[in-house]
């Protein structure tokens, strides 16, 4: 088990290292000069050169890379050329917004997705099953930005029930936070919900047809106990993998959802940074996002090892 954990952690570190190399190289092979772009053409060459030096952009590439990584370990994520603020400062503003939308979205997706997957499997072929399957099929292919816009058209413009856009911190005004966050949370959850519902349904169906379930029933164990104590435990193992994979889908979706609902989170920060060629913001944001998904996957992998002893043995 220890071997398994160490191996997984080492692989995760390697993955993060490769991502840092990737995003660093991309930012440095881009055509054009981001400093000149940010300062405008009226700035003198000396000024531009001074800023380049301040940002270490005149140093050799290898040194720049190490300066960046070294900074990261000290909480220094670089400086935004566009906002003239440190990236750490920007993240402190932006990250809580993304998290306050993203975490409820994931919880919603897991609860509703797994729940409806179970119902679907137990009611196989009935109209409830068909309805859930149809919604999941549509949900998996719905562009989140479009769903958001349709939601705004119906609930904000048409029915006037919810505010159109924006974000309020839950500590400031919790009721308003709920109203504003409702639609973004649902839009962000939809894709994860769809894949969880489908996966839960199919793995549940696979499990309830197995011999040990029939045996449990033959013993006269109550149906609820058969489903929840015996079937669900095994059926959820592949579902946990999907949760790990879907974390990145939710983060990716935050770009679209934040743009539609004008939530100034890390997603809109990254999108704007890409359009403005804001070097350090792109570099650090991408690395942080990949760190999130790597940690999520690592947790899932380890959890998997705990839940399913076969994995430990074969991979350890």
């Amino acid at each position, binding site marked *: 088990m220890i071997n398994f954990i160490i191996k997984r952690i080492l*692989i995760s570190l*390697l*993955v*993060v290292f*490769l*991502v840092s190399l*990737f*995003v660093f190289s*991309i930012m440095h*092979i*881009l055509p054009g000069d981001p400093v000149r772009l940010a300062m405008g053409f009226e700035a003198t060459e000396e000024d531009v050169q001074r800023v380049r030096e301040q940002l270490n952009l005149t140093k050799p590439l290898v040194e720049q890379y190490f300066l960046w990584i070294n900074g990261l370990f000290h909480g220094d994520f670089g400086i935004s050329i566009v906002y003239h603020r440190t990236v750490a400062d920007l993240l402190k503003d932006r990250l809580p917004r993304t998290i306050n939308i993203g975490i409820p979205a994931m919880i919603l997706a897991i609860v509703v997705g797994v729940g409806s997957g179970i119902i679907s499997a137990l009611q196989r072929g009935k109209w409830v099953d068909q309805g859930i399957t*149809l919604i999941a*099929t*549509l949900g*998996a*292919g*719905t*562009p*989140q*930005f*479009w769903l958001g*816009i*349709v939601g*705004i*058209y119906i609930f904000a*413009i048409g029915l006037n029930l919810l505010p159109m856009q924006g974000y309020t911190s839950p500590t400031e005004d919790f009721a308003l936070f709920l109203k504003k966050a409702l639609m973004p949370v649902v839009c962000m959850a939809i894709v994860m919900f769809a894949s969880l519902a489908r*996966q839960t349904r*199919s*793995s549940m169906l*696979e499990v309830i047809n197995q011999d040990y379930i029939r045996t449990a029933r033959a013993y006269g164990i109550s149906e609820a106990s058969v489903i929840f104590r015996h079937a669900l435990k095994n059926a959820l193992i*592949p579902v946990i993998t999907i949760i790990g994979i879907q974390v*990145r*889908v939710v*983060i*990716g*979706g935050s*770009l*679209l959802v934040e*743009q*539609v609902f004008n939530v100034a989170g890390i997603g809109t920060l*990254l*999108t704007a940074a*890409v*359009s403005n*060629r804001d070097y350090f913001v*792109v570099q650090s944001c*991408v690395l942080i*996002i*990949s760190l999130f*998904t*790597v940690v999520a*996957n690592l947790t899932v992998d380890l959890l998997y090892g705990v839940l399913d002893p076969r994995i430990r043995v074969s991979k350890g």
Partner: protein
Amino acid sequence: MLQNFNTGRVEQFFHVFFGRGILVQISLAIIFLFVSAALLAPVLTPYTPYEQDLTKLFAKPSAEHWLGTDNIGRDFLTRLLYGAQISLVTSLLSSIWAGMVGIVLGLIAGYFEGWIGSVIMRIIDAQLSIPSLIFSMVLGMVGGQSIIGMSIAIGVGAIPAYTRMVYGMVLSLKNNDYIVAASLIGQGETQILFRHLLPNCFAPLIVIFTMSLGMAIMVEAGLAYLGVGIAAPTPAWGVMVSEGYKYLTLYPRLAILPGLCVMLVVVAFNVVGDGLRDALDPRLRGKL
């Protein structure tokens, strides 16, 4: 005899594929319409997607403009049709290119394993730790906001699905007797990889290809919507949603119709992909 066996399989394929219900048929119809719209756009409409009629801004649907005009007087239906063309081109280009690269990487990693296999698979893992929308967005900064540049960026994002699948297949196939026999009679590695191992991956590859078409359309639309993909005035559906969003209150069709097109086409490709998976090889269920 062999003839019978083959027709039997073909029949079974259609039986399973269409036996999945009406959704498969609707999806095939949507894909047919989508491809026809893309191919026949110049014939179907008398307008071009860039032609402005400044006397007719936000015109209502009429005989002249079936779906009306947009904020600068361009025929809206024309732009939707050409949008199909852009989606079709980007999704085909990116999926074909992703398939070629992904298959070769998977074959190499699975057949040789060792350090080269580890390097390839770790790079694939690293790529998978970045959401594909973000990955293609960052990569797209290099190629620029053209259709070709975006197709390449979106394609690179789709490589892992192919590589992982081929890698897994090759690992499980390469110790079979017929592969060992092929190498014993002196067949080269290239020949073993492409003539003996690759054909066995055919069924899952078709499925992944179909699904990656839908995925590519989704990513392309997302990036265009964010303003970091294919750029205006090109009539990409994502661009149209983002432009139309400004006029949502008064002219909702401008934002809602192009997004609906994205959804219908993506769902159709997913449903057909699911159907193909079950019909070609039921064992793939739950794996792809």
